[in-house]
């Protein structure tokens, strides 16, 4: 693929993953622009396009039926659609609301009744359109994004890990959180981030979602037996970034 047209689109999200794309540093970013033609990217330019595009990076969750048409038009125009960031791949943090009913009052207070705040269940964009590749993470790992793009430029399948964070955590010889009377979800979390959190002494919260076949039952057992969680806390622990995938596994 030579100098593909790349466009960003955002739905329900914080746009932090798009900001990550501007964080490569001037030299690398300008070099990258020699290889991709960014035609729509509202974080950094005002131009917009209705032309066909090669790679669409779609950020954010699908939370309003009204967005379906816009997503479909992106799909129609794009050769490749990449779900960009955790809101897009699994609905990420947005999906937390799928398990609450008072979130609107809690978040918006007196304004909770405004019509524009109405939304449906938070879903990954794959609930509305076909997605070709996933760039996981809250936020995305910008170096992984660069490799996904590089693989596509070279006509190769991007390599996206389907092994747990423990693999990367052990490779860097981090002391396991469970050896320090803490908890962790690295055993079910999808790797690809290089396991920075346990290395800093912080449990992995599975911000890239789960591996394809997470052993959630075993996770709950380990959280109860080794980390001293109550059964309820153990069962709810995995909700933060992975509420939808958790439902799918049960």
């Amino acid at each position, binding site marked *: 693929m030579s100098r593909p047209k790349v466009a960003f689109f955002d739905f329900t999200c914080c746009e932090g993953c798009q900001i990550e794309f501007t964080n490569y540093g001037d030299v690398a970013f300008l070099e990258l622009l020699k290889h991709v033609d960014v035609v729509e990217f509202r974080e950094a330019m005002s131009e917009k396009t209705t032309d066909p595009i090669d790679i669409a990076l779609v950020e954010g969750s699908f939370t309003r039926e009204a967005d379906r048409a816009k997503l479909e038009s992106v799909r129609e125009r794009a050769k490749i659609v990449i779900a960009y960031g955790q809101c897009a791949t699994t609905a990420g943090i947005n999906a937390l609301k799928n398990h609450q009913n008072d979130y609107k009052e809690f978040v918006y207070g007196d304004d909770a009744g405004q019509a524009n705040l109405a939304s449906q269940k938070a879903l990954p964009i794959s609930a509305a359109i076909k997605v070709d590749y996933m760039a996981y993470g809250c936020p995305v790992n910008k170096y992984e994004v660069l*490799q996904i793009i590089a693989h596509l430029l070279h006509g190769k399948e991007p390599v996206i890990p389907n092994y747990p964070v423990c693999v990367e955590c052990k490779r860097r010889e981090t002391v396991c959180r469970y050896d320090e009377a803490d908890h962790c979800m690295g055993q079910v979390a999808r790797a690809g981030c290089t396991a920075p959190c346990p290395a800093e002494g912080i449990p992995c919260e599975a911000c890239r979602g789960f591996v394809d*076949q997470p052993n959630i039952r075993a996770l709950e057992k380990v959280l109860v037996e080794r980390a001293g969680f109550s059964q309820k806390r153990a069962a709810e622990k995995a909700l933060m970034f992975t509420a939808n995938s958790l439902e799918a596994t049960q």
Partner: protein
Amino acid sequence: MTASFIKNSDFAAFLTAMMKAAPVYGPVAKRSRFAFARLEAPEELRLDYDVTILPPKKLFFPPAQDLLRFDSDGFEAALEPEEKILFGVHFYDVKAIDQTDLLFAERNCDINYIAHRQTTTIVASNVQTVSKRAFFATVGADVPAKGHDAALTSIDDGYVFEPLTARGEALLKFGRFAPATEAQCRGADKVNADVLAECPEKLEHGTAAIATKVRAAFKDEELWSQLAADCFSCGSCNTVCPTCYCFDVQDTWHVDQTSGKRTRYWDACLTEDFAKISLGEGATENFRDERGERFRHRLMRKAVYLNPKLGGPACVGCGRCSAACTADIADPTRIINQIMAS
């Protein structure tokens, strides 16, 4: 070669002199655990360590190792071996290094391992603290620890240092050594023999009996799926194992899209996609799709398959897998003793 003795009071000076001559890697504290790392000061060395998180094999076979660099003109090897001293290796890890030495050298010799190995002088040290899950006394008990250059044993007021190769002997010049007395040598032998009784875990049977019965259990699918019921397929039991040697190779491009590098990473057969292969035209197959199959594969590799080649099991009883498995189902003694008792 005859053994020498160095007093505790001369030991730091010995280390310092060695460190001036070459980088010295030894066990150091890492939060609540230990890890092999380059010594910056002699007092960092913790010969009282129980077991390190990762085995010392990481110095020859790093978790991520660049194999080559490429650009539009071609490629070049990334290999840059350094002369170094690996100091304070427990005998079970010496045995494991001896195994990987053989496995990486046979047939298609792996220069990326061998070059690092050949530039390393290995000094073993006695086990001063036994880790909570160790069973090194009862696994492959008749397999000798060999391949190292010298052995160091802490006795009352100093260390007995036994050079085993010319490289080991060359280290004598860095310290104030005296010939070890017969009593000191006997003391060292006793220290190394006594520690074997301290292992908290043990195998109840010998290598051959275990290999026969574990192999016979191959088809017992229910057994393996029960054993693996809590398995996360996280691969930690592989990644911490001193005798595991599988790797995956990936290319990364630099942002210019013409230059880049080829890197190999430790792989782990317990992970879901380890045995996923291409059938061509986009089709794939995973020939160890079930957790139980993957769990069984590791045990077969450790207790059965490699025995003829290695002359003993591909497990040295370090207990790292037992401790690293958060579900606590990886302990080879529990699995093997259960099978043997059935």
